[in-house]
């Protein structure tokens, strides 16, 4: 490479970077927006919100209703929300803010009826759990009634006898054991997977939307004038390609380090994640260069950038993880680069895999990126002639 080529490449990259950093709105799009989404997702989907939410209306709590409440609250993965009225509970279920719920209606003699609310056709499993919990709570009363009837005594006497008998009955023990490694719905894992999805999404989206820089450079005639100087076409292409690549890497870095430093996301195998980001950055740069070459207006770039950036991300598992896709759709998803990266990231973050296992995905991403860049370079070269 001649020194003038090298100088030209450096100059082009520098010019692109200066333009990028000068536009203050980029602070929003590259930094604030992705990190805000990672944060909001953590709130919306991570933690309590991902488990089962049960709403309870209990304006006049009795011993019985309180016991059920305490027992259900103790269950792993169940969070309770209290409401003041049945209408409020119904509305919250309707907008899916809670999954199911009950309204406690006290009856005679300490009895309580729990009116069960759920969207039609949903909530059966939660209901089973609550019904069984209720059964446990009811045992004491049933036993009391048994003894009072059989022995012909009043409740107080029966209760005393039962209390005495308790000393002689060895209780059945119930133990719980958990096997298996890191659960996929461990809150830390959920947060990491969500951040991973955003990483994939933004590397590609920011690249595409950033194609407007290449577009305006071409439209303003800068590239043609550069061409007029002793600068070979290959240097211009290399300069523009490198600029797109650096922007993609910058975006990757912001999401990677921001998620880690600000939200405590544990990337588990950081070098593997960074390698995948580089592969995705190659794909993004290729896409951006192609878009910047073929598009004719700024609005076209934004519209197509947004379209492809969001749709491919959704299809590729950036918004809802591939694990939860229906089987056929999951296979289709791998037509997108996002799926390869998201799948590899899931395996790193949830299954604990590393370089040794995910290198095929890395290879596919890198190959796709190189192919796209090659096609884009040819297109740009043709447009410069």
């Amino acid at each position, binding site marked *: 490479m001649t020194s003038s080529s090298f100088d030209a490449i450096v100059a082009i990259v520098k010019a692109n970077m200066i333009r990028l950093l000068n536009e203050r*709105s980029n602070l929003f*799009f590259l930094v604030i*927006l992705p990190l805000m*989404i990672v944060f*909001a997702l953590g*709130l*919306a989907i991570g933690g309590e919100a991902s*488990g089962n939410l049960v709403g309870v209306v209990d304006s006049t709590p009795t*011993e019985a209703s309180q016991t*059920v409440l305490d027992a259900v609250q103790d*269950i*792993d993965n169940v969070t309770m*929300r209290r409401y003041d009225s049945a209408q409020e509970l*119904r509305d919250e*279920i*309707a*907008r899916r*803010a809670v999954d199911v719920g009950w309204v406690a209606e006290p009856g005679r003699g300490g*009895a*309580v009826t*729990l*009116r069960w*609310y759920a969207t039609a056709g949903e909530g059966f499993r939660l209901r*089973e*759990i609550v*019904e*069984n*919990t209720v059964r446990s*709570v*009811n*045992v004491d*009363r*049933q*036993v009391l009634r*048994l*003894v009072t009837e*059989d*022995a012909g005594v009043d409740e107080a006497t029966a209760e005393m*006898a*039962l209390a005495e*008998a308790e000393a002689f*009955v060895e*209780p*059945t023990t*119930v*133990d*719980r054991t*958990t096997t*298996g*490694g*890191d*659960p996929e*719905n461990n809150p830390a894992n959920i947060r990491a997977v969500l951040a991973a999805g955003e990483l994939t999404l933004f590397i590609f989206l920011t690249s595409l939307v950033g194609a407007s820089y290449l577009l305006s450079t071409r439209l303003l005639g800068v590239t043609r004038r550069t061409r007029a100087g002793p600068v070979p076409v290959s240097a211009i292409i290399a300069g523009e390609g490198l600029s797109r690549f650096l922007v993609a890497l910058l975006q990757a870095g912001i999401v990677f380090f921001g998620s880690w430093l600000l939200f405590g996301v544990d990337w588990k195998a950081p070098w593997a994640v960074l390698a995948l980001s580089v592969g995705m950055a190659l794909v993004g740069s290729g896409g951006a260069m192609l878009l910047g070459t073929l598009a004719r207006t700024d609005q076209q770039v*934004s519209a197509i950038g947004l*379209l492809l950036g969001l749709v491919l991300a959704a299809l590729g598992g950036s*918004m809802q993880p591939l694990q939860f*896709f*229906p*089987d056929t*759709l999951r296979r289709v998803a791998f037509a997108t680069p996002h799926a390869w990266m998201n799948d590899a990231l899931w395996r790193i973050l949830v299954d604990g895999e590393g370089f040794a296992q995910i290198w095929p995905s890395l290879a596919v991403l890198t190959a796709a990126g190189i192919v796209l860049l090659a096609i884009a370079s040819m297109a740009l070269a043709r447009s410069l002639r």
Partner: protein
Amino acid sequence: MAAQLWAMVWRDLWARLRDRSALVLGLLAPAALIAVFSLTAEGPTQSDLEVGYVSSAVADEDAPVALAIREGALSSLETDGTLTVTDYRDRDDLVAAIEDGDIGAGIVVTGDDPAAVEVIQDSDAVVSGAILGAVADSSAAAVDGIGRAVGAEMILGVESPSPAALQQRFQALAAEGEGAVTVVDVDDTADGAVGGIDLKTQLAAGMATFFLFFTVGFGVLGLLEEQRQGTLTRLLASPVPAWQILLAKLLVSFIIGVASMASLIAFSAILLGAQWGNPVGVAVLVVTGVLAAVSTITLVVGLAETPEQAGAIQSMLALVFGILGGSFFSLARSGGLASTLSMITPHFWFGEGLVQLSGGQPWTAALGPAGAMLVFAVVVGLPGLLLAGRTVRP
């Protein structure tokens, strides 16, 4: 005069429609995302919860709690299709099955008097683990209760109380729902159906409102373009009053916005089976929603100096509102500050309107949320109109 106005509106509309970006952002992108989300939201094929059971019988008979669990609770859960139960020979087999992924959780009963119940679950099998845990707890409580009853009756001098007989009477009582707490279904007709917005409609509404805030830019933003190109000055020099020029642009944005929403609603309803609710109610929501969007873009145009600046501010607002307002994921479940913040956005109120309409409610149910969007449109739009007016006539 009205003819002049409509002439401008038509001309602008055609120009916008020929610009394919409007079609991409107003129709193609949201429709594609709605389609993808509908497909991904269907989730993997729901298999029955697979669980296992082991009883190491010490004597010839199974311990009472083993029977209570296997023949009582688990049997009935099998019958109603909630669980599929496989019996294993011993604990090691069960644990192996869990680790192989054949089952999610299992119950192991050992010993006789007292028996020991162990609930083993895979860390991912949250639901089956919880169900088995509840089953184990209730069965153990029942058996211990019978034990205490026998003991108490002996203390009280009842003649040889037979555990079996007590057990039967206990079952009868349990079946009758005797006890302090009963779980009862809500009577739909009495209390009104728990409507509930279905997931597909929620997704479609989210995408439609998100892209709406980009789509409405295609009219009003043209003001800044024309200002830069000089065509605005020429328009002002013509006998067309300045306010009409602004109004024409606003109408173009409004029409494009409504057209986009209507198409997406039709698309999701016809092709994907989304249920939007009473058509009049939905129409009210769409009109007030589009007004809110147009008011936002008007303010943006009033504040911005160049078309690029306006485009950037518009994108930022569209993104922030979309995220806060629940277009991509709902903040409603997280409670607290986040769900309160989301109430500033028209996106939230559009979704809320659909929630109120769900379950077959009349169109008037949408009035509250529509009102909220109208308030937003006025609060944002009035200053917007003033500022945009100054752009037209500095």
